[in-house]
């Protein structure tokens, strides 16, 4: 099958001379000079790396800044369900980053500020996805597009072709300012204060490649929202965020932002802190610049796990952080770009392709059309126009579909298309009279499914499908849950149809599980001598009010039982809700203890011989393992002392959450600390028999036997989770006053420490198994 290793450009059908840089030659004049030079430079860096003139670390950061990312198995190892196998690529000795093989397929992230798409861009996205990737465009929760299974050497041409239609991948990954997101309704929304689109565009343009935004320890994610109540912008989970506000100053209405900093999800989620109740519009860019400068100067650089802006804000406190930013702002040299964009902010980013006609379309009353009108069409603030949501299952769309959508856009809305943070597409400025014809056109593309923004429109991160950090299959579970809930269809009560389910494959929250009504994140548990994929069930998050609050994990359930767990949770809500009580209020009222009890029997895992499906991920028949699996003859019947100990620590975490719910923040923090000590002692006792319960001794033993030798270190996060214990222990000794957010943070950290203990147990058990 065509595996000969010749230069593919040396021979062609006609014997003509090869064209080694043909796309560059053909498109060069259509690219902007700056972008063309940047891509040429990146191509040169690829050549330099190939020639051994760049280190792995340096080149990895270079390619990340160009949006070229790693993908699962790029270290050349894959467990095929029986054994771990080496993937033998042609350039076996060549690498494109630390432990990352040159030929291993990777991901390219494409950055579209505020998720805007034009019809021309859709055409080219279709082309590059079918030529360089697997024919699928994946819309992310940050209004980016990701292509998977792309070869490094094809990325410069891919970038050139995108550049022709004004798309860049620059700073889509890496320690940089990432895509600037904004609510997809901005400009047409019935509840907006004003259209934030031009401001998001200005921040995006201003900070892209800005010299003050190049020396970060980690990424910075900005977001904008047109109003405070709705979730489309998710400002409070971002590093930098603005909610549109107007204020009357000297009798004149002024625009500005309720401005937030230091939010973020990740392993330990932080709600953003209020930086300014009203940041005037002319101060938006200089303040963003100064935040970048302060973060670059004072942010953590060495310890990656503490390097996000949220940690700097938490460390300094919002008052001191604000003081430093304003002090820096006062010293900035004036930049005309700060205000140049303000001349155009009232113009609107897009507008109607067609004017409203008096004659209304007579809608054909088919059940499909009615269902679609009910869920997928919303009113615009401009009379006669609608916003149409196009549901993309798990954010995926084919090349053929998006090419067809480009035609549909040209016919009905022009370039007024946005990607949404729920991984769908929004067509703005659709005439009410065109709805029936648009529905018909979407049906022809198999894109008229009416489930956008409903219970079965499930968000999932890539998980074990393509992500190197994935523990459980978030997409596999999402597919199963979508089918399961869709099958139940009509029998589902109306009150649950608007709930949101979000799934992450690990604790890093790319699936935004913290903000869902019902969230799940992937973990591993040792049961009956085997690794079993589980999901932590997260309840109590708030999607509305720009991600107004985060949920907490209540119990880990085997992946196979998650559909049953979901059924029980939503039925419990249907049966027990009071009046028009919302889901979050319901969870708060009934308490996590009762919900945990509700799911308790579902935490049981049948013996391997009884039901092997529990030992695999959804949609993946391979036995779930992190390495070669083996088990002794009697292991299936034995629960080890370590498993008992870790389960005890998890129960403590649950108690801590209860205390938090009751408003006892110091009590919650104390119990979370105690849970960490139980887990640490459980593991340390394996090395130091007779270890007592004195916290000093436990922490010392943990450090000596597990942390210092690197045994407890996570393969990706290093000593991050072990350090949580040391810091909490120190804080405890020095006196710790828990605020609500600090208590919550401690519970999150304790949870992660215990997860790391489980992972350590899994790793060591595998090592000793035969």
């Amino acid at each position, binding site marked *: 099958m*065509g595996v000969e290793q010749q230069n*593919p450009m040396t*021979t062609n059908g006609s014997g003509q001379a090869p064209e080694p840089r043909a796309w560059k030659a053909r498109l060069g004049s259509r690219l902007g000079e700056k972008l063309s030079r940047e891509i040429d430079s990146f191509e040169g860096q690829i050549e330099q790396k190939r020639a051994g003139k760049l280190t792995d670390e340096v080149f990895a950061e270079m390619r990340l800044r160009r949006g070229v990312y790693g993908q699962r198995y790029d270290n050349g190892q894959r467990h095929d369900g029986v054994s771990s196998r080496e993937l033998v690529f042609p350039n076996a000795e060549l690498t494109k980053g630390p432990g990352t093989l040159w030929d291993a*397929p990777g991901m390219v992230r494409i950055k579209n500020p505020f998720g805007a798409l034009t019809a*021309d861009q859709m055409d080219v996205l279709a082309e590059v996805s079918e030529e360089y990737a697997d024919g699928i465009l994946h819309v992310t929760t940050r209004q980016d597009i990701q292509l998977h299974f792309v070869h490094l050497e094809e990325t410069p041409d891919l970038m050139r072709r995108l550049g022709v239609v004004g798309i860049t991948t620059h700073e889509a990954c890496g320690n940089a300012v990432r895509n600037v997101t904004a609510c997809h309704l901005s400009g047409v929304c019935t509840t907006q204060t004003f259209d934030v689109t031009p401001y998001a565009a200005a921040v995006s343009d201003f900070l892209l490649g800005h010299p003050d935004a190049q020396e970060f320890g980690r990424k910075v994610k900005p977001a904008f929202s047109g109003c405070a109540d709705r979730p489309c912008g998710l400002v409070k989970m971002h590093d930098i965020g603005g909610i549109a506000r107007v204020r009357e100053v000297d009798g004149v209405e002024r625009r500005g932002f309720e401005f937030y900093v230091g939010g973020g999800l990740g392993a330990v989620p932080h709600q953003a802190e209020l930086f300014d109740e009203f940041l005037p519009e002319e101060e938006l860019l200089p303040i963003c610049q100064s935040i970048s400068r302060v973060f670059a100067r004072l942010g953590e650089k060495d310890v990656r796990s503490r390097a996000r802006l949220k940690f700097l804000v938490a460390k300094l406190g919002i008052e001191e952080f604000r003081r430093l930013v304003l002090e820096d702002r006062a010293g900035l040299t004036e930049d005309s770009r700060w205000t140049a964009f303000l001349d155009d902010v009232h113009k609107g980013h897009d507008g109607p392709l067609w004017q409203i006609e008096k004659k209304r379309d007579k809608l054909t009353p088919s059940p499909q059309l009615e269902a679609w009108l009910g869920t997928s069409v919303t009113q615009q603030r401009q009379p006669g126009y609608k916003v149409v949501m196009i549901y993309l299952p798990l954010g995926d769309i084919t090349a053929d579909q998006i090419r067809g959508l480009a035609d549909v856009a040209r016919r009905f809305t022009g370039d007024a298309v946005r990607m949404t943070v729920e991984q769908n597409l929004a067509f703005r400025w659709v005439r009410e009279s065109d709805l029936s014809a648009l529905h018909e056109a979407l049906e022809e593309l198999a894109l008229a499914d009416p489930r956008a923004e409903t219970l079965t429109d499930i968000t999932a991160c890539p998980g074990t499908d393509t992500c190197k950090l994935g523990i459980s299959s978030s997409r596999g579970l999402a597919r199963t849950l979508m089918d399961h809930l869709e099958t139940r269809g009509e029998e589902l009560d109306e009150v649950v149809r608007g709930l949101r389910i979000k799934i992450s494959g690990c604790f890093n929250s790319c699936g935004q599980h913290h903000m869902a009504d019902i969230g799940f994140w992937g973990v591993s548990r040792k049961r009956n001598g085997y690794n079993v994929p589980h999901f932590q069930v997260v309840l109590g998050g708030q999607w509305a009010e720009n991600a107004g609050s985060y949920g907490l994990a209540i119990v880990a359930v085997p992946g196979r039982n998650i559909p049953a767990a979901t059924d029980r949770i939503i039925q419990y809500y249907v049966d027990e809700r009071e009046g028009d009580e919302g889901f979050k209020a319901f969870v708060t009222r009934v308490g996590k203890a009762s919900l945990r009890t509700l799911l308790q029997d579902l935490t049981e895992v049948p013996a391997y011989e009884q039901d092997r499906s529990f030992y695999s991920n959804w949609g993946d028949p391979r036995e779930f393992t992190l390495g070669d699996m083996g088990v002794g003859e009697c292991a299936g019947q034995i629960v080890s002392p370590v498993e008992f100990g870790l389960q005890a620590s998890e129960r403590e975490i649950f108690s801590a959450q209860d205390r938090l719910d009751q408003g006892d923040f110091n009590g919650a923090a104390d119990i979370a600390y105690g849970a960490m000590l139980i887990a640490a002692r459980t593991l340390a006792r394996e090395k130091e028999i007779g270890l007592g319960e004195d916290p000093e001794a436990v922490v010392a033993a943990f450090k000596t036997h597990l942390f210092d030798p690197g045994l407890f270190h996570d393969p990706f996060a290093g000593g991050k989770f072990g350090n949580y214990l040391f810091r909490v222990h120190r804080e405890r000794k020095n006196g710790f006053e828990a605020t609500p957010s600090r208590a919550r943070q401690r519970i999150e950290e304790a949870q992660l420490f215990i997860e790391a203990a489980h992972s350590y147990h899994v790793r060591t058990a595998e090592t000793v198994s035969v």
Partner: protein
Amino acid sequence: MSTQVAPDVRSRVLSAPQRVGVKLFVEDQEAFDRARMIEVFHRWIQEDRLPGTLVDVHDYTHVQEGPGVLLIAHEWHLRTDEAGGRIGLEYEMKREASGTLSERLGEAVASLLEAAAALEQDTAGDNPVRFVTREMVFRFTDRLAVPATDAAFEEVTPELEKVLAGLYGDAPVEFERVGHARGPLTLHMRVVGEGEWTLEELVSGARSAAG
């Protein structure tokens, strides 16, 4: 707008594409079991069933008229393609190709047929997968080498006829250009002459022709 090469810019002669897809349709569309393909493809990786560096299996069955289940190799992708609402098996050569245009086409056809034969063999018995042997779809996902133009269509069909003669002998075939005008050049081939061919016969013919 498109980055596709405009017809007037192309030279008359095509170059050999790095990427070309060939698809066979499944006979019984209703009975096709998508979930089973995930298991089959994972097993193929375990067993090194096909040549190349087999990387992973990817499930896109949630996408209507999408790529179905993908078997990803470094050199090629194999998918239970559902484009156009008609399920089939598509082999797409992605990189490391060599030889002339017709040699590459021959290699892609032979590779598809071998994969299809393996699938028929592995699903024999309960709900067997069988393929239609008188139709194929060719998709040139390399616009630089093979632009989606009428001129390219005219030039590529004789090359395909050469390859297909190794499979169907003297039986005439016809080509229809299908798909979106801005999509990759896509040709639907039908055998219009008399005759029946088993998949094994086609594999044998393709391999002989490919040398």
